[in-house]
Protein backbone atom coordinates (compact mmCIF):
# COMPACT_ATOMS: atom_id res chain seq x y z
CA UNK A 1 0.00 0.00 0.00
CA UNK A 2 1.28 3.45 -0.90
CA UNK A 3 1.42 5.65 2.17
CA UNK A 4 2.94 9.07 1.61
CA UNK A 5 1.90 10.42 5.00
CA UNK A 6 4.44 11.38 7.61
CA UNK A 7 3.63 11.98 11.26
CA UNK A 8 5.67 15.14 11.75
CA UNK A 9 7.18 18.05 9.88
CA UNK A 10 10.47 17.08 11.50
CA UNK A 11 10.54 13.83 9.49
CA UNK A 12 9.54 15.73 6.36
CA UNK A 13 12.54 18.06 6.47
CA UNK A 14 15.06 15.55 7.83
CA UNK A 15 16.80 15.00 4.49
CA UNK A 16 17.37 18.68 3.67
CA UNK A 17 21.11 19.17 3.18
CA UNK A 18 23.45 22.15 3.36
CA UNK A 19 23.24 24.05 0.09
CA UNK A 20 19.88 22.59 -0.92
CA UNK A 21 17.54 24.46 -3.24
CA UNK A 22 14.08 24.77 -1.73
CA UNK A 23 10.84 26.04 -3.24
CA UNK A 24 8.49 27.54 -0.66
CA UNK A 25 4.86 27.87 -1.66
CA UNK A 26 2.38 30.50 -0.66
CA UNK A 27 1.56 34.06 -1.61
CA UNK A 28 1.00 36.04 1.55
CA UNK A 29 -0.26 33.64 4.20
CA UNK A 30 -2.46 31.35 2.04
CA UNK A 31 -0.45 28.30 1.04
CA UNK A 32 2.66 29.21 3.06
CA UNK A 33 4.11 26.07 4.72
CA UNK A 34 4.65 27.67 8.11
CA UNK A 35 5.08 24.48 10.12
CA UNK A 36 7.52 22.92 7.66
CA UNK A 37 9.47 26.20 7.78
CA UNK A 38 9.70 26.08 11.57
CA UNK A 39 10.81 22.44 11.37
CA UNK A 40 13.43 23.46 8.82
CA UNK A 41 14.69 26.17 11.17
CA UNK A 42 15.11 23.51 13.87
CA UNK A 43 16.70 21.07 11.44
CA UNK A 44 19.65 23.34 10.82
CA UNK A 45 20.64 22.96 7.15
CA UNK A 46 22.39 26.08 5.92
CA UNK A 47 23.51 27.90 2.76
CA UNK A 48 20.04 27.36 1.39
CA UNK A 49 18.80 28.62 -1.97
CA UNK A 50 15.17 29.67 -1.48
CA UNK A 51 12.66 30.09 -4.31
CA UNK A 52 9.57 31.98 -3.16
CA UNK A 53 7.51 34.96 -4.24
CA UNK A 54 8.76 37.19 -1.44
CA UNK A 55 11.50 37.46 1.14
CA UNK A 56 9.59 36.61 4.28
CA UNK A 57 8.14 38.88 6.92
CA UNK A 58 8.67 39.33 10.62
CA UNK A 59 10.71 36.84 12.59
CA UNK A 60 8.87 33.56 12.03
CA UNK A 61 8.61 31.22 9.02
CA UNK A 62 10.82 32.47 6.15
CA UNK A 63 11.55 35.68 8.07
CA UNK A 64 12.94 33.50 10.84
CA UNK A 65 15.05 31.44 8.45
CA UNK A 66 16.46 34.67 7.05
CA UNK A 67 17.14 36.02 10.51
CA UNK A 68 18.92 32.79 11.42
CA UNK A 69 21.35 33.43 8.56
CA UNK A 70 20.52 30.21 6.76
CA UNK A 71 19.85 31.58 3.29
CA UNK A 72 22.63 32.23 0.76
CA UNK A 73 20.44 32.96 -2.26
CA UNK A 74 16.86 34.08 -2.85
CA UNK A 75 15.02 33.81 -6.16
CA UNK A 76 11.79 35.81 -5.94
CA UNK A 77 9.66 38.52 -7.53
CA UNK A 78 8.94 40.88 -4.66
CA UNK A 79 11.32 40.98 -1.70
CA UNK A 80 10.54 44.63 -0.97
CA UNK A 81 7.41 44.12 1.12
CA UNK A 82 7.37 46.01 4.42
CA UNK A 83 8.32 43.65 7.22
CA UNK A 84 11.19 42.07 5.32
CA UNK A 85 13.84 43.40 7.74
CA UNK A 86 15.49 40.04 8.36
CA UNK A 87 16.18 39.67 4.63
CA UNK A 88 16.83 43.35 3.91
CA UNK A 89 19.54 43.70 6.52
CA UNK A 90 21.52 40.70 5.30
CA UNK A 91 20.96 41.64 1.67
CA UNK A 92 22.29 45.15 2.27
CA UNK A 93 25.36 43.62 3.91
CA UNK A 94 25.92 41.52 0.80
CA UNK A 95 25.29 38.24 2.61
CA UNK A 96 22.44 37.07 0.39
CA UNK A 97 22.45 36.77 -3.39
CA UNK A 98 19.21 38.07 -4.90
CA UNK A 99 17.68 36.99 -8.22
CA UNK A 100 14.64 39.11 -9.12
CA UNK A 101 12.20 37.44 -11.52
CA UNK A 102 8.88 38.92 -12.70
CA UNK A 103 6.11 37.06 -10.90
CA UNK A 104 4.58 35.46 -13.98
CA UNK A 105 7.98 34.42 -15.27
CA UNK A 106 8.76 32.88 -11.88
CA UNK A 107 5.57 30.80 -11.96
CA UNK A 108 6.18 29.77 -15.57
CA UNK A 109 9.83 28.81 -14.98
CA UNK A 110 8.70 26.51 -12.17
CA UNK A 111 5.96 25.01 -14.33
CA UNK A 112 8.42 24.57 -17.19
CA UNK A 113 10.69 22.47 -14.96
CA UNK A 114 7.87 20.27 -13.72
CA UNK A 115 6.54 19.85 -17.26
CA UNK A 116 9.86 18.59 -18.64
CA UNK A 117 10.35 21.59 -20.92
CA UNK A 118 13.67 23.26 -21.67
CA UNK A 119 12.53 26.85 -21.21
CA UNK A 120 10.42 29.41 -23.05
CA UNK A 121 10.38 32.82 -24.65
CA UNK A 122 8.33 35.54 -22.96
CA UNK A 123 7.79 39.22 -23.77
CA UNK A 124 7.79 40.12 -20.07
CA UNK A 125 10.87 42.11 -19.22
CA UNK A 126 12.26 42.38 -22.75
CA UNK A 127 14.30 45.56 -23.11
CA UNK A 128 14.41 46.19 -19.36
CA UNK A 129 17.23 45.87 -16.88
CA UNK A 130 15.95 42.37 -16.06
CA UNK A 131 16.72 41.21 -19.61
CA UNK A 132 20.44 41.87 -19.29
CA UNK A 133 22.49 38.85 -20.27
CA UNK A 134 19.44 37.00 -21.56
CA UNK A 135 18.98 35.74 -25.09
CA UNK A 136 16.47 37.85 -26.98
CA UNK A 137 14.66 37.44 -30.27
CA UNK A 138 11.77 38.88 -32.23
CA UNK A 139 8.73 36.59 -32.35
CA UNK A 140 5.58 37.69 -34.19
CA UNK A 141 6.98 41.21 -34.33
CA UNK A 142 7.63 41.51 -30.63
CA UNK A 143 10.81 41.20 -28.61
CA UNK A 144 10.94 38.15 -26.33
CA UNK A 145 13.57 36.92 -23.88
CA UNK A 146 14.51 33.33 -23.09
CA UNK A 147 13.79 32.04 -19.61
CA UNK A 148 15.05 28.72 -18.25
CA UNK A 149 13.25 26.08 -16.17
CA UNK A 150 13.65 26.34 -12.42
CA UNK A 151 14.12 23.06 -10.53
CA UNK A 152 14.54 22.43 -6.81
CA UNK A 153 15.71 19.72 -4.47
CA UNK A 154 12.68 20.22 -2.23
CA UNK A 155 9.30 21.90 -2.47
CA UNK A 156 7.30 22.71 0.65
CA UNK A 157 3.71 23.95 0.49
CA UNK A 158 0.55 24.21 2.57
CA UNK A 159 -2.55 22.54 1.14
CA UNK A 160 -6.11 22.15 2.39
CA UNK A 161 -6.86 18.43 2.02
CA UNK A 162 -4.54 15.54 1.31
CA UNK A 163 -4.63 11.75 1.29
CA UNK A 164 -2.11 8.91 1.65
CA UNK A 165 -1.71 8.84 -2.14
CA UNK A 166 -0.53 12.45 -2.22
CA UNK A 167 -3.62 13.96 -3.82
CA UNK A 168 -4.05 17.60 -2.76
CA UNK A 169 -6.76 20.26 -2.79
CA UNK A 170 -6.43 23.95 -1.96
CA UNK A 171 -8.90 26.44 -0.51
CA UNK A 172 -9.49 29.70 -2.40
CA UNK A 173 -6.22 31.57 -3.00
CA UNK A 174 -3.98 28.78 -1.62
CA UNK A 175 -3.19 27.35 -5.05
CA UNK A 176 -0.87 30.13 -6.23
CA UNK A 177 2.69 28.81 -6.71
CA UNK A 178 1.91 25.59 -4.85
CA UNK A 179 0.48 23.73 -7.81
CA UNK A 180 3.54 24.10 -10.08
CA UNK A 181 6.04 23.79 -7.21
CA UNK A 182 4.76 20.30 -6.36
CA UNK A 183 5.80 19.24 -9.89
CA UNK A 184 9.27 20.78 -10.01
CA UNK A 185 11.19 19.37 -7.05
CA UNK A 186 12.92 16.06 -6.41
CA UNK A 187 11.10 15.81 -3.09
CA UNK A 188 7.73 17.57 -2.72
CA UNK A 189 6.00 17.86 0.62
CA UNK A 190 2.64 19.32 1.61
CA UNK A 191 1.45 20.13 5.09
CA UNK A 192 -2.35 19.90 5.12
CA UNK A 193 -5.35 20.97 7.19
CA UNK A 194 -7.15 17.68 6.69
CA UNK A 195 -5.96 14.17 5.93
CA UNK A 196 -8.71 12.24 4.21
CA UNK A 197 -9.06 8.51 3.44
CA UNK A 198 -8.02 7.66 -0.12
CA UNK A 199 -10.98 8.06 -2.44
CA UNK A 200 -12.68 10.82 -0.45
CA UNK A 201 -11.45 13.57 -2.75
CA UNK A 202 -13.59 13.58 -5.90
CA UNK A 203 -11.33 12.95 -8.93
CA UNK A 204 -12.64 16.20 -10.44
CA UNK A 205 -11.61 18.20 -7.36
CA UNK A 206 -7.95 17.13 -7.17
CA UNK A 207 -5.73 20.18 -7.75
CA UNK A 208 -2.43 18.29 -7.58
CA UNK A 209 -2.57 14.58 -8.48
CA UNK A 210 -0.69 12.38 -6.04
CA UNK A 211 1.88 11.36 -8.62
CA UNK A 212 3.59 14.73 -8.12
CA UNK A 213 3.68 14.55 -4.31
CA UNK A 214 6.13 12.64 -2.12
CA UNK A 215 4.97 13.36 1.42
CA UNK A 216 1.88 14.67 3.21
CA UNK A 217 1.82 15.83 6.85
CA UNK A 218 -1.34 16.79 8.71
CA UNK A 219 -0.65 19.61 11.13
CA UNK A 220 -2.50 22.68 12.45
CA UNK A 221 -1.57 25.90 10.76
CA UNK A 222 1.28 27.98 12.06
CA UNK A 223 -0.30 30.26 14.68
CA UNK A 224 1.11 33.39 13.02
CA UNK A 225 -0.64 32.41 9.76
CA UNK A 226 -4.00 31.63 11.36
CA UNK A 227 -4.84 35.06 12.72
CA UNK A 228 -8.38 35.03 11.31
CA UNK A 229 -10.89 32.25 10.95
CA UNK A 230 -11.96 30.31 7.93
CA UNK A 231 -15.40 31.56 6.93
CA UNK A 232 -16.61 30.00 3.72
CA UNK A 233 -15.72 26.79 1.98
Amino acid at each position, binding site marked *: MIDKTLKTCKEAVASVFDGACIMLGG*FGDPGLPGMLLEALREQGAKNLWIIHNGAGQGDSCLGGLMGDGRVRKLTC*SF*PSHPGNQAFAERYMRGEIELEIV*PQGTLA*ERIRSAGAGLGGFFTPTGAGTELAKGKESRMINGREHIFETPLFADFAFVRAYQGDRLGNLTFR*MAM*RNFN*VPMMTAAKVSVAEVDELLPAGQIDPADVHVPGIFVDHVVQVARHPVLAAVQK*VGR
Partner: protein
Amino acid sequence: MLNRDGIAYRVACELPEGSYVNLGIGIPTLVGDYLPQGKDIFLHSENGILGMGPAPAPGKEDIDCINAGKQYVTMLPGGSFFDHPTSFSLIRGGHLTHAILGAFEVAANGDMANWRSPGDKVPGVGGAMDLAFGVKNVWVTMTHVTNKGKPKTDLALIDVTPDGLVLREVAPGIDPATVQAKTEAPLRIAPDCREMNVPAKFVASQLTA
Protein backbone atom coordinates in the same frame (compact mmCIF):
# COMPACT_ATOMS: atom_id res chain seq x y z
CA MET B 1 -7.16 68.78 -7.54
CA LEU B 2 -8.27 65.34 -6.34
CA ASN B 3 -7.67 63.42 -3.14
CA ARG B 4 -6.71 59.72 -3.29
CA ASP B 5 -10.31 58.53 -3.26
CA GLY B 6 -11.08 61.06 -5.97
CA ILE B 7 -8.42 59.54 -8.21
CA ALA B 8 -9.92 56.10 -7.60
CA TYR B 9 -13.44 57.38 -8.27
CA ARG B 10 -12.48 59.03 -11.55
CA VAL B 11 -10.69 55.88 -12.75
CA ALA B 12 -13.63 53.64 -11.76
CA CYS B 13 -16.02 55.84 -13.81
CA GLU B 14 -13.85 55.24 -16.87
CA LEU B 15 -14.23 51.42 -16.81
CA PRO B 16 -16.75 50.05 -19.31
CA GLU B 17 -19.08 47.13 -18.65
CA GLY B 18 -17.41 43.79 -19.27
CA SER B 19 -13.98 45.00 -18.17
CA TYR B 20 -11.54 42.53 -16.67
CA VAL B 21 -9.32 44.65 -14.48
CA ASN B 22 -6.20 44.13 -12.40
CA LEU B 23 -5.82 46.61 -9.58
CA GLY B 24 -2.36 47.37 -8.29
CA ILE B 25 -1.44 48.19 -4.73
CA GLY B 26 -2.21 51.60 -3.20
CA ILE B 27 -4.58 54.03 -4.93
CA PRO B 28 -5.56 51.35 -7.51
CA THR B 29 -6.93 49.13 -4.76
CA LEU B 30 -9.36 51.92 -3.84
CA VAL B 31 -10.88 51.70 -7.32
CA GLY B 32 -12.72 48.58 -6.15
CA ASP B 33 -14.72 50.75 -3.74
CA TYR B 34 -16.07 52.99 -6.52
CA LEU B 35 -17.09 50.62 -9.29
CA PRO B 36 -20.24 51.81 -11.04
CA GLN B 37 -23.41 50.07 -9.82
CA GLY B 38 -25.11 47.65 -12.18
CA LYS B 39 -22.17 47.08 -14.50
CA ASP B 40 -20.47 43.68 -14.64
CA ILE B 41 -16.81 44.49 -14.04
CA PHE B 42 -14.44 41.72 -12.94
CA LEU B 43 -11.48 42.43 -10.70
CA HIS B 44 -8.45 40.15 -10.98
CA SER B 45 -5.67 39.57 -8.53
CA GLU B 46 -2.31 38.03 -9.45
CA ASN B 47 -2.56 35.40 -6.73
CA GLY B 48 -5.28 33.52 -8.59
CA ILE B 49 -8.61 35.29 -8.14
CA LEU B 50 -11.06 36.66 -10.68
CA GLY B 51 -14.26 38.34 -9.47
CA MET B 52 -13.23 40.02 -6.24
CA GLY B 53 -15.84 41.94 -4.32
CA PRO B 54 -15.47 44.55 -1.57
CA ALA B 55 -13.51 44.10 1.64
CA PRO B 56 -15.22 41.74 4.12
CA ALA B 57 -16.99 43.10 7.20
CA PRO B 58 -14.85 42.92 10.35
CA GLY B 59 -14.91 39.38 11.69
CA LYS B 60 -15.90 37.98 8.31
CA GLU B 61 -12.41 37.75 6.86
CA ASP B 62 -11.43 34.41 5.38
CA ILE B 63 -7.86 33.37 6.05
CA ASP B 64 -7.41 32.05 2.49
CA CYS B 65 -8.99 34.88 0.53
CA ILE B 66 -6.60 37.79 0.04
CA ASN B 67 -5.64 40.03 -2.86
CA ALA B 68 -2.15 40.71 -4.18
CA GLY B 69 -1.78 43.50 -1.62
CA LYS B 70 -2.31 40.86 1.12
CA GLN B 71 -5.67 42.40 2.11
CA TYR B 72 -8.70 40.24 2.83
CA VAL B 73 -11.28 40.31 0.04
CA THR B 74 -14.65 38.76 -0.78
CA MET B 75 -15.87 37.06 -3.94
CA LEU B 76 -18.71 38.15 -6.19
CA PRO B 77 -21.04 35.60 -7.83
CA GLY B 78 -19.36 34.18 -10.93
CA GLY B 79 -15.79 34.46 -9.68
CA SER B 80 -13.10 31.81 -9.83
CA PHE B 81 -9.89 30.64 -8.18
CA PHE B 82 -6.85 29.33 -10.07
CA ASP B 83 -3.10 28.86 -9.77
CA HIS B 84 -0.28 31.25 -10.64
CA PRO B 85 0.52 29.84 -14.09
CA THR B 86 -3.13 30.34 -15.08
CA SER B 87 -3.26 33.76 -13.43
CA PHE B 88 -0.31 35.01 -15.46
CA SER B 89 -1.50 33.29 -18.63
CA LEU B 90 -4.52 35.50 -18.21
CA ILE B 91 -2.29 38.58 -17.83
CA ARG B 92 0.45 37.86 -20.36
CA GLY B 93 -1.94 36.34 -22.89
CA GLY B 94 -3.77 39.64 -23.25
CA HIS B 95 -7.03 38.47 -21.69
CA LEU B 96 -7.37 41.29 -19.17
CA THR B 97 -8.79 44.50 -20.59
CA HIS B 98 -7.29 46.91 -18.04
CA ALA B 99 -4.50 47.15 -15.51
CA ILE B 100 -4.53 50.04 -13.09
CA LEU B 101 -1.11 50.49 -11.61
CA GLY B 102 0.69 52.79 -9.32
CA ALA B 103 3.98 54.15 -10.62
CA PHE B 104 6.47 56.63 -9.39
CA GLU B 105 7.22 57.89 -12.84
CA VAL B 106 5.69 57.67 -16.27
CA ALA B 107 7.77 58.77 -19.21
CA ALA B 108 6.17 60.47 -22.19
CA ASN B 109 6.05 57.19 -24.14
CA GLY B 110 4.24 55.42 -21.33
CA ASP B 111 7.23 53.43 -20.14
CA MET B 112 6.98 52.77 -16.48
CA ALA B 113 9.71 52.36 -13.98
CA ASN B 114 7.75 51.10 -11.04
CA TRP B 115 9.90 48.19 -10.07
CA ARG B 116 12.87 49.97 -8.63
CA SER B 117 12.29 53.27 -6.91
CA PRO B 118 15.42 55.37 -6.58
CA GLY B 119 16.49 55.02 -2.99
CA ASP B 120 14.66 51.76 -2.39
CA LYS B 121 16.84 49.54 -0.30
CA VAL B 122 15.60 46.36 -1.95
CA PRO B 123 14.42 46.14 -5.55
CA GLY B 124 11.21 44.29 -6.39
CA VAL B 125 9.11 43.75 -9.45
CA GLY B 126 6.18 41.54 -8.37
CA GLY B 127 3.57 41.21 -11.10
CA ALA B 128 3.79 44.78 -12.39
CA MET B 129 6.06 44.00 -15.30
CA ASP B 130 3.85 41.13 -16.52
CA LEU B 131 0.89 43.51 -16.35
CA ALA B 132 2.71 46.30 -18.18
CA PHE B 133 3.73 43.90 -20.97
CA GLY B 134 0.53 41.89 -21.16
CA VAL B 135 -2.49 44.12 -20.70
CA LYS B 136 -4.09 46.15 -23.50
CA ASN B 137 -4.94 49.23 -21.47
CA VAL B 138 -2.56 50.13 -18.67
CA TRP B 139 -3.75 53.03 -16.59
CA VAL B 140 -1.42 54.60 -14.09
CA THR B 141 -2.68 56.34 -10.97
CA MET B 142 -0.10 58.54 -9.40
CA THR B 143 0.41 61.61 -7.42
CA HIS B 144 1.72 64.11 -9.93
CA VAL B 145 5.47 64.53 -9.67
CA THR B 146 7.32 67.74 -10.48
CA ASN B 147 10.73 67.69 -12.07
CA LYS B 148 12.08 68.37 -8.61
CA GLY B 149 10.65 65.08 -7.46
CA LYS B 150 8.10 66.46 -5.00
CA PRO B 151 4.78 64.66 -4.89
CA LYS B 152 1.58 66.57 -5.63
CA THR B 153 -2.06 65.65 -5.32
CA ASP B 154 -3.55 64.50 -8.57
CA LEU B 155 -4.10 67.10 -11.22
CA ALA B 156 -5.24 65.59 -14.46
CA LEU B 157 -6.35 62.70 -16.68
CA ILE B 158 -3.66 62.22 -19.29
CA ASP B 159 -3.65 59.77 -22.21
CA VAL B 160 -0.40 58.25 -23.41
CA THR B 161 -0.61 58.21 -27.23
CA PRO B 162 1.85 57.45 -30.02
CA ASP B 163 2.12 61.25 -30.40
CA GLY B 164 2.96 61.82 -26.74
CA LEU B 165 0.96 62.83 -23.68
CA VAL B 166 -2.51 64.27 -24.26
CA LEU B 167 -4.31 66.20 -21.51
CA ARG B 168 -7.96 65.11 -21.49
CA GLU B 169 -9.29 66.43 -18.20
CA VAL B 170 -8.09 68.69 -15.43
CA ALA B 171 -9.01 68.36 -11.77
CA PRO B 172 -11.51 70.92 -10.42
CA GLY B 173 -9.84 74.29 -9.88
CA ILE B 174 -6.77 73.42 -11.97
CA ASP B 175 -6.03 74.88 -15.39
CA PRO B 176 -4.05 73.20 -18.16
CA ALA B 177 -1.13 75.58 -17.80
CA THR B 178 -0.71 74.54 -14.16
CA VAL B 179 -0.64 70.87 -15.16
CA GLN B 180 2.01 71.55 -17.82
CA ALA B 181 4.05 73.54 -15.35
CA LYS B 182 4.10 70.52 -13.04
CA THR B 183 4.87 68.02 -15.81
CA GLU B 184 8.34 67.50 -17.20
CA ALA B 185 7.18 66.00 -20.53
CA PRO B 186 5.36 68.19 -23.05
CA LEU B 187 1.55 67.92 -23.01
CA ARG B 188 -0.83 68.36 -25.91
CA ILE B 189 -4.23 69.68 -24.85
CA ALA B 190 -7.12 67.64 -26.27
CA PRO B 191 -9.63 69.72 -28.29
CA ASP B 192 -12.36 68.63 -25.85
CA CYS B 193 -10.26 69.00 -22.70
CA ARG B 194 -12.53 69.79 -19.77
CA GLU B 195 -12.76 69.94 -16.01
CA MET B 196 -13.45 66.62 -14.30
CA ASN B 197 -16.97 65.98 -13.06
CA VAL B 198 -16.47 64.52 -9.57
CA PRO B 199 -18.40 64.94 -6.30
CA ALA B 200 -17.05 67.68 -4.02
CA LYS B 201 -15.84 65.21 -1.36
CA PHE B 202 -13.18 64.00 -3.79
CA VAL B 203 -11.67 67.46 -4.30
CA ALA B 204 -8.70 68.32 -2.12
CA SER B 205 -8.96 71.71 -0.47
CA GLN B 206 -5.93 73.27 -2.08
CA LEU B 207 -2.91 72.65 -4.22
CA THR B 208 -0.13 71.81 -1.81
CA ALA B 209 2.87 73.51 -3.28
